[in-house]
C-alpha cells in the first residue's frame, strides 16, 4: 500500500528534503518540482505533496495524506486529531513573550493586550498564569504592534532574535520550544502500520545520525 507524505513548504522544506535524501529516499521530484503538485518518490512506493503548514494538519486529519511534517508552532495553534510521533529536531526555534523594556507586562493591573499570529497559544500561556489577557490577531510583522502602541506585548516565534533586538524589544519569557514534528493519521497507523513504521524508523535513524 502506498503512502502519501505532506511536507510543509517554506522554512522547513529544504531541511526536511535533505533529511529524506540522506535516508536514501528518492526526492528528485520534490527538488525539481516545476508545477506538479503530487510528487512521486523515485525509489520508494510513496509520494509527496508540498503544502502550507495549516493545510498539512488538515490533509493528515482527513487521511488523504498518511504522514505530515509540520512545525510544532502550527500544531500548538491548530487542532489535535492525529498522532504526533516524532521530533525531527530541525527548524528549531521557540515561542517567546516580548515587549518594550519598560512595559511592565506581568505587573500590569487590569488586562494585558497581546499581539500575535498565534491567538490560541498566547491565550493559553496567559490563562495558565491567571492573567487577564486580550488577544489581538496580527497577520504581518507582529513586532510592529507594540512599537506603535497597539498592544502591551507580543507572543511570537523567535529564531535568532535579531528582529526583536533591532526594534528594541526584550524577551520576557519562553513559552515553548518548537521544532519540526512528524504527525500520522490515526487510521493510517492502523491500516498501513508496517509502511508507516518503516518511514518513522528511517526518519528516527536519520535524526540520530545527521541532526543530533
Amino acid at each position: 500500500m502506498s503512502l502519501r507524505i505532506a511536507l510543509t513548504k517554506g522554512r522547513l522544506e529544504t531541511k526536511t528534503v535533505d533529511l529524506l535524501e540522506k535516508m536514501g529516499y528518492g526526492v528528485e521530484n520534490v527538488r525539481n518540482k516545476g508545477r506538479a503538485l503530487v510528487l512521486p518518490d523515485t525509489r520508494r512506493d510513496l509520494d509527496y505533496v508540498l503544502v502550507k503548514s495549516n493545510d498539512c494538519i488538515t490533509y493528515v486529519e482527513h487521511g488523504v495524506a498518511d504522514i505530515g511534517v509540520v512545525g510544532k508552532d502550527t500544531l500548538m495553534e491548530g487542532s489535535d486529531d492525529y498522532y504526533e510521533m516524532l521530533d525531527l529536531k530541525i527548524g528549531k526555534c521557540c515561542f517567546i513573550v516580548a515587549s518594550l523594556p519598560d512595559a511592565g507586562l506581568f505587573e500590569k493591573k487590569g488586562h494585558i493586550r497581546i499581539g500575535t499570529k498565534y491567538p490560541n497559544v498566547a491565550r493559553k500561556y496567559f490563562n495558565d498564569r491567571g492573567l487577564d489577557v486580550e488577544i489581538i490577531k496580527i497577520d504581518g510583522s507582529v513586532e510592529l504592534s507594540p512599537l506603535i502602541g497597539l498592544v502591551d506585548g507580543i507572543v511570537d516565534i523567535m529564531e535568532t532574535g535579531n528582529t526583536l533586538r533591532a526594534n528594541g524589544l526584550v524577551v520576557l519569557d519562553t513559552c515553548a520550544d518548537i521544532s519540526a514534528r512528524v504527525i500520522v493519521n490515526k487510521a493510517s497507523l492502523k491500516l498501513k502500520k508496517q509502511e508507516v513504521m518503516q518511514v518513522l524508523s528511517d526518519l528516527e535513524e536519520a535524526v540520530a545520525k545527521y541532526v543530533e
Partner: protein
Amino acid sequence: MEIRTPSGTRDLTGRDVRKKRLLQKLMMDSFEKHGFEEVMTPAMEYYQTYSMAFDSLQDRQMVKLFDENSDILALRLDMTVPIARLYGAKYQDAKLPLRFCYASNVYKIRKNFAGKRLEVMDCGVELIGEGRIGDLEVLVTALDTLSSLPIGNYAFEIGEASFFGRAASLVFEDPKTIEALGDLINRKSLVELDEFLSRQNLNEKEILFFRRLPWLNGGAEVLEEARKVCFDESLQEVISSLKELYEDLRSLGYEEEVRFDLGKTPYQNYYTGLIFEAFADGVGTSILSGGRYDNLLEKFGRPADARGFSVKLDYLIDLFELPEKKETCILYYPEGRWQQAFSEARELRKIMPVVLTPWDQDEIVKEVVE
C-alpha cells in the same frame, strides 16, 4: 437571511440517500438479530442532563437552545446519555439485562471549514447489566455488524481503559496530572510524553511502562509484550483478563478480525474497562467506537454495568457503490387517457416503481429504466 444549510450540515439526495438507508437497514437488522430493541429519544435534552453525565463537559461543542421557561436545552451529543436518562426514568424496576439500539442524528460543533460535520447519524447499541459476558456479546455484535457492511478493508482494535487507569493511579495522585498524561498517550504525542515523564518523579520501570504504552498496538502478541513492562501485579491481571477475552473471541472464530491497542486511554474517565474502535480504508478517523462505562448509570439513579458502541454512518457512504441497480418504469400517457394510465400503473407497482409522465402522443408507452 441566507438560503442555505447551516455550516457543518448537508442535504442528501438520490443515490446518497439510498446508500445511507441501505447502511442503516443493514446495521439495524444486525442489531435486531443480536437481540437489541430500537429506541427513539428527542433530538434535544436539557443541558443539565449532559452536565450531570460528564465530569468536565466540553460544553462549547454543544448546540444550545432555550425553552419557554428559559431552561437551557442542548441537541444531543451522543445517544448513550439520552439512553442513560431513559433508563433512569423508565426502567428503574426493569429486569436486567436491557438491550437497546438506535439510529439517530447526533450533534457536535466543529471547527469551521475543517470539513467536519455538525450533524451525523449514529447507529449503535447499549447493553445494560450482564457483567463480563456482556462485553463479549457487544464485541461480537460489533464485529458481526461490521462484517455485514459493504465497506472493504477495516481494522478493529481492542484496548482496556483500566490498564492505563490503574498504572496512573499507582504513581500519581492528582487527577489533572493523570488526565494530561492520558491525553498524551491517547494522541501518541511521543515528544511531549517524553518531556512530561522526565519532569515526574518516577522510577525506570514506571517510565518504561508509560513510554511503551503508545506502541503497544498490533496482534495478540502485544499482550505478551505488555506483560514485560507491567510494574505491578494488578497490571498483569488486566493483561490476563484481556488475554482471556482474546481466547474467548478466538474460540468463536474472531481471532483474525481483532487487534489490540493498549495505548487507548478513556476520554474524560467515561470508559471504565473495555474500550474499542474500528478504522476503515478511506476514512481518516475511527468509524466505530465503544466501550464499557460503569459509572454513568448511577448518576441517573440506578447503578449498573453497561457497554455499547456506535458507528458513524455518514462516514461510510463514500466507501461503496450501490450493489444492485434499481429498475423503474416510466409510464408515458396522453392526458386524455389518464384513467387507464393510473390503473395500469397501480397494477405495475406490485412489481416495480412507476413514474407517471404525460406526453403529447396518442399511445401509452412503458419504458423500464435503471
